[in-house]
């Protein structure tokens, strides 16, 4: 994503604060996969994979990988106590029924009203939606972790998405290297500001309108 390891972990760490014991959580690839590194030891968060796992644990040690125990991205995982396997219909039943408490995923664009575009660049990249539409539309809380701008310096937090949507009005929170935005009924609210970015810099870098929280949290370097 073009962000350094330190910033990626800063974003992941902030996302981890949104998760509590007992929650069912689905993580996308990229920065979201770093979130477990920032959870307290001994937590009881159950990680969900679309292929059919509830209760994924940490990555296996090298040489301990099992080709038949992988996450939805196809990479080896382990399971924790209380885990179970199911077929993909049941894994998606959990999603559609709204039992996934938090999903954390990447995005190409997020709009002021929470529309999400994260799966297709017409004429360029058409990988298919996979499970993104199901997750975005039905998870109780959708958290987007992304670069604030694309590689051309264009804001990814937009007034209105120009790319085809994954789902409408589904995003609850966006975390970028500059800060944290909550999608409120009236629009975006900046709740957290990450140094070294100033409010002015964030405004200039953001196409979308946003309000600033009266209880804005400012994080140091």
């Amino acid at each position, binding site marked *: 994503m073009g962000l350094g390891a330190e910033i990626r972990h800063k974003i992941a760490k902030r996302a981890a604060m949104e998760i509590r014991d007992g929650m069912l959580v689905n993580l996308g690839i990229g920065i979201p996969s770093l979130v477990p590194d920032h959870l307290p030891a001994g937590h009881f968060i159950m990680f969900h*994979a*679309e*292929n*059919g*796992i509830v209760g994924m644990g940490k990555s296996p040690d090298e040489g301990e*990988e*099992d*080709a*038949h*125990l*992988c*996450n*939805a*991205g*196809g*990479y*080896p995982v382990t399971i924790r106590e209380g885990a179970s*396997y*199911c*077929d*993909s*219909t049941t894994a*998606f*039943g959990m*999603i*559609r029924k709204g039992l996934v408490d938090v999903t954390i995923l990447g995005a190409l664009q997020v709009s002021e009203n929470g529309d999400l575009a994260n799966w*297709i660049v017409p004429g360029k*990249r*058409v*990988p*298919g*939606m*996979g*499970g*993104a*539409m*199901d997750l975005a*539309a*039905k998870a109780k809380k959708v958290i987007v972790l992304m670069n604030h701008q694309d590689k051309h310096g264009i804001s990814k937090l937009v007034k209105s998405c120009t790319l*085809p*949507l*994954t*789902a*409408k009005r589904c995003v609850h929170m966006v975390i970028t290297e500059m800060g944290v935005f909550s999608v409120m009924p009236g629009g975006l609210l900046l709740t957290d500001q990450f140094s070294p970015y100033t409010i002015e810099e964030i405004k200039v870098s953001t196409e979308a309108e946003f309000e600033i929280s009266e209880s804005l949290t400012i994080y140091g370097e």
Partner: protein
Amino acid sequence: MLIQNTFQKICHLTDLKHLFEDGMSIMFGGFGGIGTPPGLVNLILELAIKDLTLIGNDTGFPHIGIGKLVTEKRAKRIIASHIGSNPNAGRYMTTGELEVEFSPQGTLVERMRAGGMGLGGILTDIGLDEEIVKRDKQTISLGEKTFLVETALTADVSIVYAKKADPFGNLVYDKSARNTNPLAAMAGAVTIAEVKEILPLGALSPEEIVTPGVFVDYIVESKGVDWQWVWEQK
């Protein structure tokens, strides 16, 4: 261990050739290649059949899983939720050599299951606002809510991978390699299971069986995968 072939379902790969032909539809189990039956994919490659319609979660990787058939241009059409891990699929789609129908993953697996369960389809609100999903599908109103009509998927032949089978075709899967296999196992007019191990009748606990043998027509023993997984490639 002597296995009685009581139901005449246990066979060799070479006994299965007559089941395959140009233009047929093949549903496959697996997710990113994991749980896709390697020996059956190779058999299809060797048979040099073409113009296939492939139905399954994704197109694997270029040399992993069903991806091998895609790379070798055996498919004219694919119904899947994701083709991103196999660049050949995207390339052939762009050149018009491959037709791709995208279905959201949760919808796709329910359509596969519906085919196996003898249903006509299912109703879901996933993708109702997205043109690429909605396309020319019918919608239906139930009270205040609107749903897309998503049709059942079946296939001439289903190919699946399992960890254990008995001679009746009862199947037990292996961890996350279960994924879409139980669905594909039910949705084929003919279902072939490639399995790591064939055990005598009665050796599987009746509680642990995931796919009842009723759905399985042929059982072959697997020689394992002949590809390197992406995470093994250094």
